[in-house]
């Protein structure tokens, strides 16, 4: 009687294959990061940005104001409003217009070699937007005691002229982004 030997991969080859299969798992996310960083992926922070410095350099500072229906503006600390979020993430939440100005749909996954981009995640529904606005209004009411209708995110460009003696600093408003908390969708 002939016994058919079952074809199996030897343990040695299994480990070799594991190491070989690792290559695409590492390289694909690295390529994807050019657009947007995936998770989970074996990536460490790169932040390959450059600062131009010819006698001066510029950094961006953000300030937030809440506006009530009478048009009065109240500065507030982002840390107070976003105490449910770890402080390192605050600038990112602010950048996304407190989750109202930027939709989740902007995250697209480029398919390698096809030129196509696949949207990941679902766009926010109107009810989710309203829930976020209500959450922010409640927080602002709690912190400032006002019924806020919009938030202004002011971005200042702070330029340090270090080639001058004494070193001079100039702060200039660069951008005013509005986040509507009532009324129109965006």
């Amino acid at each position, binding site marked *: 009687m002939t016994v058919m030997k079952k074809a199996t991969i030897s343990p*040695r080859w299994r*480990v*070799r294959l*594991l*190491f070989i299969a*690792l290559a695409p798992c*590492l390289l694909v*996310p*690295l390529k*994807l990061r050019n657009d*947007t*960083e*995936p*998770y*989970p*992926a*074996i*990536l*460490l*922070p*790169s*932040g*390959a*940005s*450059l*600062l*131009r*410095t*010819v006698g001066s*350099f*510029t*950094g*961006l*500072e953000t300030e937030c104001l809440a506006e009530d229906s009478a048009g009065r503006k109240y500065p507030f600390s982002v840390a107070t409003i976003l*105490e*449910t*979020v*770890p*402080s*390192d*993430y605050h600038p*990112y*939440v602010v*950048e*996304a217009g*407190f*989750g*109202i100005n930027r939709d*989740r749909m902007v*995250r*697209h*996954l480029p398919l390698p070699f096809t030129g196509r981009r696949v949207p*990941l*995640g679902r766009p*926010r529904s109107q009810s*989710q*937007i309203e829930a*976020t606005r209500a*959450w922010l209004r409640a927080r602002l009411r709690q912190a400032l005691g006002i019924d806020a209708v919009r938030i202004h995110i002011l971005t200042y460009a702070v330029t340090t002229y*270090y080639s001058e003696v004494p070193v001079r600093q100039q702060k200039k408003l660069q951008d005013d982004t509005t986040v509507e908390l009532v009324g129109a969708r965006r």
Partner: protein
Amino acid sequence: MQLGLRLDRWIHGFLPVTAEGLALSRIFFAAFFLVTGIPTFSWVSSNPPGFFYPPPLSIANLFATFPSVAVMRALDLVICVLLIFLLVGFKTKASSVLLSVAWIFGSSFRYSFGLIDHTILTVVTPAVMAFSGWGATYSIDAKARKSASPLNAWPLSFLALLLGFGFFSAGFPKLLVWADFDLTTQGARSWLVTGWYRLGRRKLLAPLAMSVHNPLVWETMDLTAVAFETSFIFSLVRRGLFRTYLFIAVMFHLINLLMLNIGFITIFPLYVVFAPWERIVPRLRPGVLRMADRLASVNGLIALLVLFLPLYLFEDRVSVNTAANAFSHLGIAFEYFRSPLDYNWFLTLTLHPIAAVVALILAGLAVPLPGRSDRIPGTGGKRVVFFDGVCNLCNGYVDFLIQRDRARGLMFASLQSEAGQVVTRAVPAAAVPNTYYSVFLLDTDGQIYQRSDAILKTLVSLGGMYRMLGVLWLVPRLLRDVVYRGVSRWRYRIFGTRQSCRLPTQEERAMFVPDPLPT
């Protein structure tokens, strides 16, 4: 050699494994998070759906918003229990894999605020190490098992590859942008200025760094960072080089903390896995190993569960920063007593310097030659200093030692003598004059040390004020040996040689190993 065999040799032999070393790295890994901060995720559920912005590939994309508090609280508890299982080595393999899976699941939601914290290497460590046999000893599993479980070295090579690639992924984009050799554009300074204005990172040496305007300094910093990060992966060719890179990495993180206020303490449990356990374990006191063994028991498991699970009753009462980054007894105590120092910052400020000191100690550990020597007749078990008998510098060194060795704990023998064969058998090149080998030390335990290890061990053994030279153990061996090699190489030219080997005087004779040796 065939490519496959070379690959196998690297995969299974790049880093040595011992059951004790693996077990201690497992215990350290779990204890690190249990003591400093257990990953928690229930806080994400208190945020509105607008903040939900999951990264691509993340499992969070399957959800419309953050999961309910009940789901995330259950996840927090599971992670805590799995960390305790890992610590005591209960169902170690399954616990390790599940821990990574649960951690990745929770992190997928944590990183849905627009920023990824790059803790992934630490998060996947338990899943990879699950296959190393890190539960083979000091574990409940080991006590329940009758036969010893096998050890695998490939998970360490796998993790080393991931770490090398991780650094490459950080360095490669910088290489394309930062290495522009343009003095008007600076990368590291961009991190500093962005952190300063955007994130309020203005502590430690950041103000000093902000006042440095010399473009050459910044350009050098950019190129150094790029060179280190991109070349890390090439260190995988040699174990010693890899460990040197690990040492540099610890210092690199410390500099980042001081200058940019960026802490990276979560990477340390991964580095500990790569520690030279084969050198550390023999130096540990038996009490430490006994304690590890006692902890890894059913009683230990129950005690830890009783100690940690009630912690979660306070989960709602601590701030998000504490709960999210450092949920532990210590963190809660910091909040409860309203400490003026932020707990996360306290951890970062404490652990980075500790890691740097530990890295220095490990980098400076003396490494004996393989094997042990038999006792040399006529030495009475004393330390024996072997020296190049024709070298003037070495003879001067011997005179120096003889004058200061009041306790008469040292004996001397030239490498050219019969006793010198103890060394030249282990290092044949030392038998030939005019090589790098000038001084060796045979310690009382039969181990032979060479180069700067031999000199430092000998000097410290003189006692008195020479013990203070022990601080030089904090200088990495690699650097010490560079100095040693430099001096050793030029010693004949600078200090000259003798025509014949040194013969001890009548007074010195008792301090020299007899040549020929007594039978």
